[in-house]
């Protein structure tokens, strides 16, 4: 593997790759992420917790709800990635299935985490707005 890596040129290969190709690769990655995730700085787990704070919902209901209050349409893969992580951390848990659909509910720890996250965001928003006023 090391021999092939040496032949390949190692790290020097990327430097010789050419600025145009490098720029195209970076742009392609950026556009792919934008295409899939949308232009949102909000994290999917935070959006899911915010959606469930209002009441129990299944996956599709969460997607619709998040789109209505945040203007972000989460993809199925992104949504279930967030659901998996949140359940592993004990911040959400499944409830009784309804018509093959699996609703989730926010736990006490999840509510506490959401409160902390929103307080942090609020501090950031206030600081940003205060600084914008001074410029």
């Amino acid at each position, binding site marked *: *593997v090391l021999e*092939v*890596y040496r*032949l*390949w*040129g190692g790290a020097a*290969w990327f430097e010789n790759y050419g600025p145009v190709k490098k720029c195209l690769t970076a742009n392609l990655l950026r556009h*792919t992420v934008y*295409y*899939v995730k949308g232009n949102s700085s909000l994290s999917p787990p935070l959006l899911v917790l915010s959606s469930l704070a209002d009441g129990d919902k*299944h*996956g*599709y209901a969460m*997607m619709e709800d998040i789109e209505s209050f945040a203007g972000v349409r989460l*993809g*199925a*893969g*992104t*949504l*279930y*990635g967030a*659901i*998996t992580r949140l359940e592993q951390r004990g911040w959400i848990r499944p409830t009784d*299935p309804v018509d*093959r*659909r*699996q609703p989730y509910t926010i736990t006490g720890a999840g509510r506490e985490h959401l409160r902390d996250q929103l307080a942090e965001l609020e501090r950031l928003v206030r600081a940003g707005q205060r600084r914008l006023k001074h410029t």
Partner: protein
Amino acid sequence: MKSIVRILARLYPASWRARYGAEFDVLLEDVTPSARQALDVFLGAMSMQITTWNFGKIVAVSAVAGLALGLHRCIRQACGV
């Protein structure tokens, strides 16, 4: 497109599919199939695969990827590109 998304959903790890597979398939029936959805499911599957990999598998996959890139470079050099 719906069948492509269904095939891509099979790329999730078996342990993940055992827990979430049924409800995920129901969700995929509800959403409008699109290229964006397909890409999102693919990236979700890859991300979930990587989180379930152990150190040995990460090293093995990195080695295969390095080998493939190296071979690509060798072929390019041999062809004088």
